[in-house]
Structure formats: C-alpha cells, structure tokens
C-alpha cells in the first residue's frame, strides 16, 4: 500500500514558467514533509520541507504548500530553470518513536526546456 503518491511520472515546462509538482499521502500520522531532488547517478539531495503546523514554506524560488485536510502537498518552482531538470521525490515522516523513517513517493521527472 503506497502511503505517499506522486501520480505524475513526468512534467515538462518552459524555462521561466512555473513548475508545480504534486504529492498525496494517505497516512494521517505523517507530520513532516520533505522534497528531495535527484540528478542521474547522484544521491537525492534535500530541497525543502514543511511541518504539519504550517501550510506554506518558501525558500527562494521554491515554495511548498500543504493542505492537511486534503492530504496533499505541492512544490512550486518559479521561475523554472534548465538546471532544475531532475527527479523530484516527495517524502514524509510521522510521529512516534520511528519518526526518522522517511516514506518516499515514486518521483516525478521534471524537464525544463530552454
């Protein structure tokens, strides 16, 4: 049973436009959400996170929105740049003693065209 879902395997946008990557989760015990970015042949790198007590977190061109009632979060990248082309993973962790465990989605391949 997939607890973190990224339903779009890929997304293509033009340079300078907004990229919106979506993520849904089913486990109501999740209280911390992260986005990781992965280039080919490299490990994932942390991008941005949000706690369940917030509905928005912004860091430069990257903003994450959380809608707890819908169990949905999204990552907005604006303006998109060709260097943003990568696989983006949504991840979540929960409360309790094993909150170090991250549950990942399958990823979305973002391609930013010049």
């Amino acid at each position, binding site marked *: 049973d997939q607890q973190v879902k990224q339903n779009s395997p890929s997304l293509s946008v033009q340079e300078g436009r907004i990229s919106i990557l979506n993520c849904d989760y089913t486990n109501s015990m999740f209280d911390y959400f992260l986005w990781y970015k992965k280039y080919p042949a490299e*490990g994932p790198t942390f991008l941005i996170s949000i706690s369940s007590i917030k509905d928005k977190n912004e860091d430069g061109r990257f903003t994450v929105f959380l809608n707890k009632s819908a169990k949905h979060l999204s990552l907005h990248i604006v303006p998109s740049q060709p260097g943003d082309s990568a696989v983006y*993973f949504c991840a979540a962790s929960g409360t309790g003693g094993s909150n*170090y465990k*991250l549950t990942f989605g399958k990823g979305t391949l973002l391609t930013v065209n010049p």
Partner: protein
Amino acid sequence: GAGVSQSPSNKVTEKGKDVELRCDPISGHTALYWYRQSLGQGLEFLIYFQGNSAPDKSGLPSDRFSAERTGGSVSTLTIQRTQQEDSAVYLCASSLSGGAGTDTQYFGPGTRLTVL
C-alpha cells in the same frame, strides 16, 4: 567537507552469490540509514543505526539481508544468496543526530546492484 560515499558504484553478480555494499557516512554524523530503490519505485527504508543503540531492522525484506556499523562510522550491507528481485540501487544516508524526520538526511550516490 566530504559527503556520504558508497562503494562499489556498480556491482553485477550471479544469482546465489553474496554481496557486500559499503557506506562511509559524513564525519560526525551519528545516524546512518540504508534505503533501496527498485526500478520505477520510490526509496524504501531498510535499516537505521543510531550511535550505540540497537539498529531498527524493520525494513529489511528478508533474513538474507543484514547490516552492521563498525565503530559508529562505516557500515556494510550484506545480501546473502542474492536473487534477481534484489536488483536495485542501494542508497546510504547519514544525519547529524537522527531521531526525527526534521534531522536532514544526506544521501550517498548509491550502489547499483544487478543480479543476473
């Protein structure tokens, strides 16, 4: 400073053979994690080490999988009697203190394991 390193970067083995995958975490990080990513899937948690505490092995898929962490630093993931379904990228991560999802996990480049 140096990031998480893993070796080998690629490993091809025959079904039934044993393999060892190595991870060198970031110096000073007390928490170490192993994940694997099978084709078309997200990262799947395997095992977690924190200091001298007993590891959380709850994600290991079978008793053919084991891991150890010597001296609180280097870790080795061992897969015995490999099967074709073990083919995946095995990723190691470390974090400063562990214990919470808020403690950023830094990933190595992974070891791509192919079982023929």
